[in-house]
């Protein structure tokens, strides 16, 4: 009932009568054509006619005063043999009277400059009616028309719409103009509403299917790297199915999740980073890596809060809207088959020295034990031993062999990875219905020898228009993925790279491979430190696998109550079930006292969203008015059960019954959010657009009295070039935009009460524990306020387009776990604290420098962005917030500094910055201070696309200027003497002619240091004194991110592309590792390298067939 009343009020609010216009004319003997021009000048009415009309030059006499247009055309009809039709938009169609009622059929073909064979799926509509058809696969259409003087409208996403009068013809061919170079791009915005980009007051970047599917990334989000200004994507080298760090316009929540919200076909999906930390773990992938690139139609990046405000709390970090493909209206069934094969090889590996063997002080280790083997403790396992000259020594197995360098263990150990993907998609449709079904199978092998992925995806999509007013759209996606042996990361004995990086240069991988376990089943290796294992023992005995089933479903109904009022209902969920198991065999003394362990976990998660949206649309005169009112119910539920067993009984049987000790776990959580929102768009004469959104959320996770929060946004767009009649040949289109938004955020469940956990125990004593987090009983929603201004300028008929945005955002009242002093007995307290400010500039330039008649075309797209984050406040007496730490460094947030400053101990220096060297020739520990910043100074991407007839070629160069990364891997390799830089001074030292001379001045007398030291001590000294300076390096790099070479067989049914990704560096400031080598995709993960897997280059071939 209430809804009904509301509807009526809208109608009342908008119904305004048309004003009558009257015209005065005094024309004596003028050709009809001239008369049309005069009327147009005076009244704005445009006449639409065929130049071949017989009467077009007929002399007319017309003298009227304050007469309506209806009467004027009546007069003209009297003087000619013509019929005048008044259409909307002040359009008058002129038709010969004798042909008026001749209905018939019009056919034709729609093509474009590039799609010369025909453009399928184009909408062809008779202007002023709802009658329309869609072109078939070859671009042909056939439409029945009531008379042969109607106007046909052609529209298709990515092309400028086009109108043409039939003018009596039976065949009308049309060449549509692509608007890749146009400013009139249609993009998908919040709530999946398609909008003309010029009308938006905020920044949106949309990437089409071609860009996504041709790049063939396992994780489709990676194909956006370098293509969207302000979007930072860092793929962590963590094995197949690894997650990526995705940050839009800087980090806004200091300790929270900063990933944008991902919305697939209107249904938001859960997405958190994949895990892994300083002490090991694996990267479990993120939800995005489950998506099948072949099914994606477009990805639309809504950057600022203004764009995303309709998503409320979850839009604070921006939103990435993914639209999947639908079937198209066509004759018969379309089949497309695409296959891709990609190989992957390590890209950046450390440089190893090949001169000195295991040992220290130039000596090979003493022998010890039975059989006698080289000592396995420090410092004997370093590579500071004798020069390898083929002399005979006892190796770690107790066998005599010549000392020789053993090559690059990375190149030897890792295999060539590969990915084989096949998709078959069927699609079809009529004027009222469409379907698309696709099946994809993917098999990947990572560079880690036992790391494999198998994934199958089935995707079904159907739409149907049931009658004139009612339409439905439904989708079902099922994904199954199985990953074997996700690599273990960072500081853990299970991280194979740890061992590869530091093993003595004379030890062969072969010997480790052939000797993994001794007769007691214990791990065999050359050292006693548990942090460095035998890589092959790990491959054989420490395993993990997971299997994930994911179902995404969506059902949507739309009912057009009136022409301009529609009601939409949508419901959909994202469900996943995951089974994870890891096991470690007995034999490793560091694990359960050599007894082995296993753990397995089964979890279910669902996010269910239901939306109701009513949209009302009204145009009067030059005003356009559009209002949507909606509600959303979101429900999340997660459940997991785990089993941990330790102390295995019989070998090779991985079942919980086979473990002496075990513990189990259970976790259940629920969350619900109700929302009501309103979206309004007002425009005037297609010149000024105002968008407003208002939204209120009620979250179950907040205290009842504070659980409601309101946000809003206002966005203004002004097309000044149209308003001021600027010369279109120079400035074709000019737009200014401004946006303001306030959004909020809630928290996770169960944060507002103190809980006691019952402990599982096999002792006779009942036990309970208390969580380390103090609750906050008055938690408030957090709040981000932001504004942005921007301009969009198209020059020279849009052959050069410049898009600039400047933004500001302040996140306040951040909900975070504030660290407490340990002496409170609690580690954190949930609080509203801290302020973080982000400002930034984004520039995108699209140019078309060459477009030749013969079909040669060159496009350039340049994106550039810079973000400055500043921490404006922390909480209470806290001096800083620790975001992450590593050996000898920490990433911290300090007030008035950027988010994510790298702190470490510097060398002791004098006032001029010279290192002060002590009496023995050593550098000394200085201050703990800010030494780096994880934020890049700026990022840029340059894409060049060349097209000539059926050939295309494109490459993307990705640039990061500044930003720092801390490489603990480099520190380890130096300490152990395996890296090339440790060679310096060795020969001199052993020859007695010198050694390593630390750069700096002597503290005793201020003279330049000239005291040689034994090289091993140079690096040991840094480790011992915890000096971090050497390991902080600039992440600046210029990378060939992507190269694609494509050829399409002229008949269009086959396309072949060669794709290369992450190919090489033009420049890289850091040595030994890729600047994108962080071990996690968390907020600060990109700034810490810790014996990461090498980054990879991939080379692929992709084939597409369409029938």
């Amino acid at each position: 009932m209430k809804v009904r009343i509301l509807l009526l009020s809208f109608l009342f609010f908008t119904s305004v009568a048309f004003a009558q216009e009257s015209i005065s004319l005094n024309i004596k003997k003028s050709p009809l054509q001239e008369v049309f021009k005069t009327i147009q000048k005076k009244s704005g009415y445009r006449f639409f006619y065929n130049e071949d009309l017989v009467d077009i030059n007929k002399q007319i006499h017309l003298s009227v005063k304050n007469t309506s247009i209806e009467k004027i055309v009546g007069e003209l009809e009297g003087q000619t043999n013509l019929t005048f039709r008044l259409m909307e938009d002040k359009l008058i169609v002129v038709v010969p009277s004798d042909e008026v009622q001749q209905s018939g059929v019009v056919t034709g073909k729609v093509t474009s400059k590039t799609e010369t064979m025909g453009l399928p799926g184009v909408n062809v509509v008779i202007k002023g009616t709802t009658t329309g058809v869609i072109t078939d696969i070859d671009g042909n259409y056939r439409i029945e028309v009531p008379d042969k003087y109607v106007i046909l409208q052609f529209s298709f996403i990515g092309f400028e719409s086009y109108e043409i009068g039939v003018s009596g013809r039976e065949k009308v061919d049309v060449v549509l103009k692509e608007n890749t170079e146009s400013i009139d791009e249609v993009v998908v915005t919040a709530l999946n509403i398609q909008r003309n980009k010029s009308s938006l007051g905020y920044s949106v970047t949309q990437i089409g299917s071609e860009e996504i599917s041709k790049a063939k990334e396992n994780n489709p989000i990676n194909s956006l790297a370098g293509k969207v200004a302000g979007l930072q994507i860092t793929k962590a080298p963590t094995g197949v199915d690894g997650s990526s760090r995705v940050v839009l316009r800087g980090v806004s929540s200091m300790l929270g999740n900063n990933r944008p919200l991902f919305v697939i076909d209107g249904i938001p999906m859960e997405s958190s980073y994949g895990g892994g930390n300083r002490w090991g773990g694996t990267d479990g992938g993120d939800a995005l890596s489950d998506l099948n690139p072949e099914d994606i139609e477009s990805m639309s990046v809504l950057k600022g809060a203004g764009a995303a405000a309709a998503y409320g709390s979850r839009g604070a970090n921006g939103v990435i809207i993914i639209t999947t493909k639908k079937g198209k209206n066509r004759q018969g069934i379309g089949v497309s088959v695409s296959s891709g094969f990609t190989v992957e090889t390590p890209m950046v590996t450390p440089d190893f020295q090949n001169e000195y063997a295991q040992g220290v002080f130039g000596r090979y280790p003493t022998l010890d034990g039975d059989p006698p083997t080289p000592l396995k403790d420090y410092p004997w396992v370093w590579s500071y031993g004798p020069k390898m000259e083929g002399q005979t020594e006892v190796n770690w197995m107790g066998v005599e062999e010549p000392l020789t360098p053993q090559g690059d263990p990375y190149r030897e150990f890792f295999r060539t990875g590969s990915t084989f993907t096949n998709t078959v998609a069927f699609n079809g449709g009529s004027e009222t219905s469409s379907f698309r079904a696709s099946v994809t199978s993917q098999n990947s092998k990572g560079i880690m020898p036992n790391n494999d992925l198998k994934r199958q995806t089935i995707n079904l999509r159907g739409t149907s228009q049931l009658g004139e007013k009612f339409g439905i759209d439904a989708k079902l996606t099922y994904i199954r993925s199985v990953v074997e042996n996700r690599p273990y990361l960072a500081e853990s004995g299970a991280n194979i790279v740890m061992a590869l990086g530091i093993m003595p240069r004379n030890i062969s991988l072969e010997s480790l491979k052939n000797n993994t376990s001794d007769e007691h089943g214990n791990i065999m290796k050359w050292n006693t430190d548990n942090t460095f294992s035998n890589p092959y023992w790990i491959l054989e005995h420490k395993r993990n696998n997971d299997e994930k089933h994911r179902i995404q479903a969506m059902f949507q109904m739309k009912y057009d109550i009136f022409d301009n009022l529609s009601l939409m209902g949508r419901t959909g969920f994202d469900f996943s079930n995951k089974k994870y198991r890891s096991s470690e065999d007995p034999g490793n003394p560091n694990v359960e006292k050599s007894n082995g362990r296993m753990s397995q976990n089964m979890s279910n998660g669902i996010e269910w969203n239901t939306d109701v949206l009513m949209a009302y649309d009204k145009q009067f005169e030059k005003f356009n008015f559009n209002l949507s009112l909606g509600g959303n119910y979101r429900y999340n539920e997660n459940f997991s059960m785990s089993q941990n067993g330790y102390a295995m009984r019989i070998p090779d049987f991985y079942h919980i019954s086979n473990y002496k000790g075990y513990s189990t776990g259970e976790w259940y959580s629920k969350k619900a959010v109700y929302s009501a929102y309103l979206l309004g768009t007002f425009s005037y004469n297609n010149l000024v657009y105002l968008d407003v959104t208002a939204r209120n959320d009620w979250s179950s996770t907040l205290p009842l009295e504070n659980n409601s929060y309101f946000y809003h946004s206002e966005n203004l767009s002004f097309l000044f070039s149209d308003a001021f009649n600027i010369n279109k040949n120079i400035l074709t289109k000019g737009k200014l935009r401004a946006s303001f938004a306030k959004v909020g955020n809630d928290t996770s469940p169960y944060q507002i009460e103190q809980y006691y956990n019952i402990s599982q125990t096999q002792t006779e004593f009942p036990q309970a524990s208390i969580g380390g987090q103090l609750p906050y009983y008055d938690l408030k929603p957090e709040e981000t306020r932001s504004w942005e201004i921007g301009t969009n300028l198209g020059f020279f008929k849009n052959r050069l387009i410049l898009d600039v945005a400047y933004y500001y955002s302040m996140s306040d009242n951040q909900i975070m776990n504030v660290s407490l002093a340990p002496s409170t007995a609690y580690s954190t307290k949930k609080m509203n604290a801290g302020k973080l400010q982000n400002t930034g500039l984004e520039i995108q330039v699209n140019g078309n420098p060459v477009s030749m008649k013969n079909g040669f075309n060159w496009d350039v797209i340049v994106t550039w962005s810079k973000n400055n984050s500043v921490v404006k406040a922390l909480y209470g007496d806290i001096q800083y917030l620790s975001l992450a730490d590593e050996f000898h460094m920490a990433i911290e947030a300090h007030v008035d500094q950027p988010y994510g400053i790298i702190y470490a101990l510097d060398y002791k220096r004098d006032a001029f910055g010279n290192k002060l060297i002590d009496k023995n020739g050593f550098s000394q520990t200085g201050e703990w201070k800010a030494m780096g910043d994880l934020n890049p100074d700026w990022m840029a991407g340059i894409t060049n696309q060349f097209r000539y007839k059926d050939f295309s070629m494109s490459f993307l160069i990705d640039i990061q200027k500044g930003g720092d990364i801390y490489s603990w891997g480099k520190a380890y390799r130096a300490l152990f003497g395996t890296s090339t830089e440790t060679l310096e001074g060795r020969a001199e030292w052993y020859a007695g002619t010198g050694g390593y001379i630390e750069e700096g001045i002597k503290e005793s007398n201020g003279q330049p240091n000239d005291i040689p030291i034994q090289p091993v001590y140079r690096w040991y000294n840094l480790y011992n004194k915890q000096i971090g300076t050497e390991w902080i390096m600039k992440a600046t790099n210029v990378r060939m991110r992507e190269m694609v070479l494509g050829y399409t067989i002229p008949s269009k049914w086959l396309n072949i592309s060669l794709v290369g990704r992450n190919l090489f560096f033009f420049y890289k400031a850091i040595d030994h590792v890729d600047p994108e080598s962080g071990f996690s995709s968390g907020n600060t993960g990109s700034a810490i390298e810790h014996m990461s897997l090498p980054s990879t280059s991939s080379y692929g071939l992709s084939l597409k067939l369409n029938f």
Partner: protein
Amino acid sequence: MKTKNLYIALFLLLLFSSCDDKFAEINKNPNAVTEIEDGYLFSNTVLNTIRGANNTRLQFPFGSQLGHYYVGQNNSMFIDRYYDHFTGAEYKDLFESFYYSPIRLVSEVMRFTKPGGKNENEVRYAMARVVAYINYARLADSFGSVPFHEGGLGQEGILYPKYDSVETIYKDIISSLKEIIPILQNGDPEMGYKLEDPLYNNDLKKWARFANSLRLRLAIRARFVDPNFANQAIAECLALPLIEELNQAAGGENEDSDLHEMGNPMYGHWQGWRWKMSEKFVETLKSTEDPRLYVFVKPNTKGEYLGIPNGLSDTELPNWVWSEVSDPTDSLVGKAASITEMSAAEIWLLRAEAALYNIGPGDANELYRKGIEKSFEQWKVTQEQVDEYLDNAEYANLHGTQEQQFEQICTQLWIAVNPNAHEGWANIRRTGYPKIAQRTEPKFSLGVTNGILPSRLRYPSSEVNINNKNYQAAIEEQGPDLITTHLWWDVRD
């Protein structure tokens, strides 16, 4: 427009009426409870105090290396070399493991059971306070001033706890225990923890002995710095029942089990780190012909009992063959090895010290011999060997000057407290015995103390950062936050 707003409001109301009730239901945590019996927390804090990470970390890498029982490998060696760069790591982990485990739990038990608390109970409150005091005393002996009165009270809203000096902590604990002991001694077991006391199974008499022995330990520790205060407290302690027999000792028995909860928690550390016997410890046992040598020390591959000196430098270390250095035996680090917080031997030896200086009754030599006998008994030395030692060994009787006799008592105390190595380090600092020589280059690493045994540990970075004002106030009173700064009771040269 006003009517429009009204309609929107009506529309929303319709959609979202009654959602508050649902929310309360949805946000009810099914994984944990909001109310708990204090016994559940008490048993956990006791188990944590005896066998939790706080204690195992205290013993290794700190107590056992600084107390010169063991020598560590790899990273733990830095501590043995008198370095101090662990404020963000080992010191932090140690400090936090105290406050986050036993203190968090016991503070909550005290909040429940204290006068006016929701489960007010005099006996339980007394038991909880004893547990709290062991932990605070360990913290004060390691770090110096720590938040004591305001410590562990996050739950009551104290987010920036003030530090209390070691003197305040000691004196408060010593006077509080005076009140507590009679409550335990005369307490009704019905009021105690009948099912939730892993230490003494609700034997309140034993609790009273333990509380009194703890009081004696702390009072003796204070006797050089404040003799008047300490001597009175010592006299009071000696007038009340103390731990005298093995079955009264505070500690935990372990099973030969791979299960975390049942086995010796140090066993896992040992498996991972494989520390070796210290030369100082092995040589002391050898030179006194102490039968406990065979109890504590494993012979090396050549059948010798060989320790390695603590704190060797990188240039010296390569001259040692690690596998030829003796390992500790299973009695110390095996799966079934027991954990001792306070042994009967320790208390007999403290009584000997009191007698030697005429602060307490009895004959110092008799008490000294009793201490040795109890220690032998604890380590299951055969009666034959016990008799042999007590009858014939040079060190079975006190001899020489008072100072020499004191050194003998201290040396026996050092041997007897093992594996509570942290107590050994504390006694070395308090008494100067056994003597730990200042280290010299190039054989030894001098660390940051110029080769002198560290006096304390440094505060963790988390306290320095978050509780900065109180931290500053504490070091202003106590002295710089360095490992060379002496604690209140550490006044003897």
